[in-house]
């Protein structure tokens, strides 16, 4: 698998460290309530198909990336810097 880092170019996945779903970017406010925090910390989808994930270019530039990946075809879609991805 290869991931196109927006800063470094396309690199082997061994340069990257996997974190999990990009849900981690949507941190609720401290007073958002039990459900919002439970969703944020524990609940994850496990789709057969497109996912949005967080990968860290540990063996490269150190950027956190939001990577669209299809778990069925292994196809990598859009890749963006996490720092520019938050709404």
């Amino acid at each position, binding site marked *: 698998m290869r991931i196109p880092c927006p800063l470094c170019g396309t690199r082997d996945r061994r340069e990257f460290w996997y974190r999990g779903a990009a849900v981690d970017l949507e941190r*609720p406010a401290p007073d958002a309530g039990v459900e919002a*925090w439970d969703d944020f910390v524990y609940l994850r989808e496990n789709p057969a198909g497109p996912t949005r994930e967080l990968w*860290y270019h540990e063996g490269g530039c150190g950027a956190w990336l939001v990577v669209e990946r299809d778990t069925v075809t292994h196809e990598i879609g859009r890749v963006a810097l996490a720092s520019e991805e938050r709404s």
Partner: protein
Amino acid sequence: MRLAGRGLIDRSKPVAFEFDGARHSGFEGDTLASALLANGVRVMGRSFKYHRPRGVLSAGSEEPNALVTVGAGDAREPNVRATMQEIHEGLQAWSQNRWPSLGFDLMAVNDLAAPFLGAGFYYKTFMWPRSFWEKLYEPVIRRAAGLGALSGQAGGERYERAHAFCDLLVIGAGPAGLMAALVAGRAGADVILADEQARMGGRLLAETYEVDGQAGHLWADVVLAELDALPNVRRMGRTTVFGAYDGGTYGALERVLHHSGRRPRGAPVETYWTIVAKRAVLAAGAIERPVAFRNNDRPGIMTAGAVRAYVNRWGVSPGQSVAVFGNSDDAHRTARDLLAAGVHVPAVIDSREDAPESRDFELRRGAVVCDASGRRGLEAVTIRTAQGEERIAADALAVTGGWNPTVHLTCHMNARPVWRDDIACFVPQEGAVPGLRAAGACNGAFSTATCLREGAAAARAVLEELGRTVRDEPLPEAEDDPYRIAPLWAVSGKGRAWLDFQNDVTVKDVKQAAQENFRSVEHMKRYTTQGMATDQGKNSNVAALAVLADATGRGIPQTGTTTFRPPYSPVAIAALGAGAEGKGFRPERFATSHAASIERGAPMIEAGLWYRPSYFPRDGESDWRQSCDREVGYVREAVGVADVSTLGKIDIQGKDAAAFLDFVYSNMFSTLKVGRVRYGLMLREDGFVMDDGTTARLGEKHYLMTTTTAAAGEVMKHLEFVHQGLQPDWDVRFVSVTEQWAQFAVAGPKARELLDGILDAPLDAADWPFMSCGAVSVGGIAGRLFRISFSGEQGFEIAVPARYGAALFDILTDRAEALGGGPYGMEALNVLRIEKGFITHAEIHGRTTAFDIGMGRMVSAKKDCIGKTMSERPGLLEADRERLVGLKPINADGRMLAGAHLFREEDPPVRENGQGYVTSVCHSPMLGQMIGLGFLKGGSDRHGEIVKMWDGLRGVTTLCEVTGPVFFDPDGGRMRG
């Protein structure tokens, strides 16, 4: 039998080699198989299950029978295909799977017991009694069955791994692959041309066709010369592309030195390549399939294509009198090549009623071979025609049942091949592997002209996709014979007709599987073991599923294929693991004091990848405890020196550095004054403790964070994530400076005295209160000093750029020794911290909260931080949670063990009575007994209670008093003094 004047071998270069201890001679260019055939050796192995004598079947990597062991001692390699092993001076090869010898094999008794050993035999027979399986059945079966054996010794040969990148990877260098590489190479694309054979050319080397008016192999040589002159083309011979993976990544195995007895220093015997290609052309050719008939495994029976290869490429005939049997025009071609080489062809048996006539040889149309005789080598075949059966003497038989395109790589990403009735074979599904195109025989194009055309077309399509200009060039002239085939899988009749030679699977086995309702091809495979040997069914899959389709009344496409998985041909684990063994798997990180520690005889222990001194033994000390106690004494009574450089150091700078630290630490750092240090606790977002350490404020916008040795990498990633992912607008940057600074703890009542003696300016106690930090100069070198303590004594940590670390360690230890102290290691460091109740990752092991470790108040109420919300969950704040306590045996000689569990004194030690567990223990020289830290339900509410420590594994029960975690100097006066 060697044929005069034929073949591409170099007859001026004879090569001597040994097979089963007998000396033989061949020529440069020979494989072991061709050289053995030339020497009249027909039996090259014994079959897996029945131990039947077997000869070579093929001339390529698909060979199921002629597997040998090459090399000796720790360089021994089993299951080498004789068809792929090039001979070289001094080569020693041995046959396998026989005892005591290839000619007389005692296990051949299995062959006589064959009626009892059919499909599913093991499943049915060895079910009961269950206890017999491990002790009796399995060892016996393993000894009787099996191929070659590994040497059992480590690391004889060197393996390597490497990476390559290209625009176009061409897999296979037959006519299609050569043409693809030529077109792409001429257009300037970066091309890698890989072929598993030593010599490139594919079938052009094995056939007698002309290309562009010259012999095929000469045309190939011309193309290869042109490719070699192009700087953008790289040729990789002896390289098998064995797997297709995501993102245009291909795995390849280069056999670097197997063809040579030489081992130049450092040279690998094999290299495992990862090739990343923008596009790929698969030109892997096709594998000829045999026809199943009774005793079709007699030595001397081989595929027709292999016979032509041995005759044309190696100048060897498999026999004096070679019959030919088949269902396509390839049978006729084979006979013509044999006749042209002067070999007698007693008959061509063609199953097709409408086969073309020939005057060159005796042709039997609409006939089949139904039996073969000659146990150690073919003597005659029995043919069946409309007139009846007839025996024909022959010492070799060339068989063709048609060609199976080598579709394997196109299936590695889940695609299934597509059945084509017109040519009776599976072809690749288009787009099966993104970026890969199939061309030539592997795509079902069997004439030389279509191979050349498809190779060129595939390259042109790739060039267009890559945005390169393509010139239209005429294609070389070549034969364009039609492929006329009438499917023939198995000849009916009694007896055993072999499908899978390597695993001894017969037509009857497959039919039996169907009868017993193992009708799915995947079930049939597992039930019969067809296709599960090292050839992965390359010679038998399609025929086996055709037989299954017939037995179940379905068509071949409805029956489907089994799953093709990488690797295409066997790859040694040693190759896949190249570079990742020993230190390559686990690199070593050494602190600057490493050499000095070794010199002092310190046993080193691993801390992650780091190596740290355990203790520094002195003459006369008989065990580590004595050394450890002495070193603890240095720190408690004089001064000790320890290298603490392995702790993670992260330099944090920026306008928002303070706000950032407030967010990642549970406690406040924005309020920390410049020149001061604070202990910080870091939580995960789920509220549990992630790491701890001290952070110093070096300037208004400049902090230096320390992490534990183990968590340094994790914390760095975490900080980057919190910044980039959660607070990207904050002006803050981090860099790890762990390796840039050497840092030493100087601890003990004489610590200040020691440092005062080496710093360039006097060390005034008033300027350096507890938890202060600042710049210092030592020997003219700019360094940093931190007044912190992990021992409970007056303590400093002094840091200098790493290049001065070794020198500073020497100075510090010399001075310490002069003051009645010296260096201390990890054991003493651990004792010192347990006596003080300081935690490490033994306590913050991922399942404990700030509340559990007695630091609940360190989660600041004044601000948000990572983990704060979740740490406030009611369940994480209950008084009866397992919380940190100190533990002390009530008898001074009581033993404590980390990992032991805690129970009420009166309760039996069973899980439901569990009250907690012990995390850290040591013998405390200060208290003169063992002490420990652990987690106990109710924690601090139970100080003074007696609990039972129980270690069932090591059989130790000790009654302990529950105490506070701080055993020594609880008010911290020594540390602040």
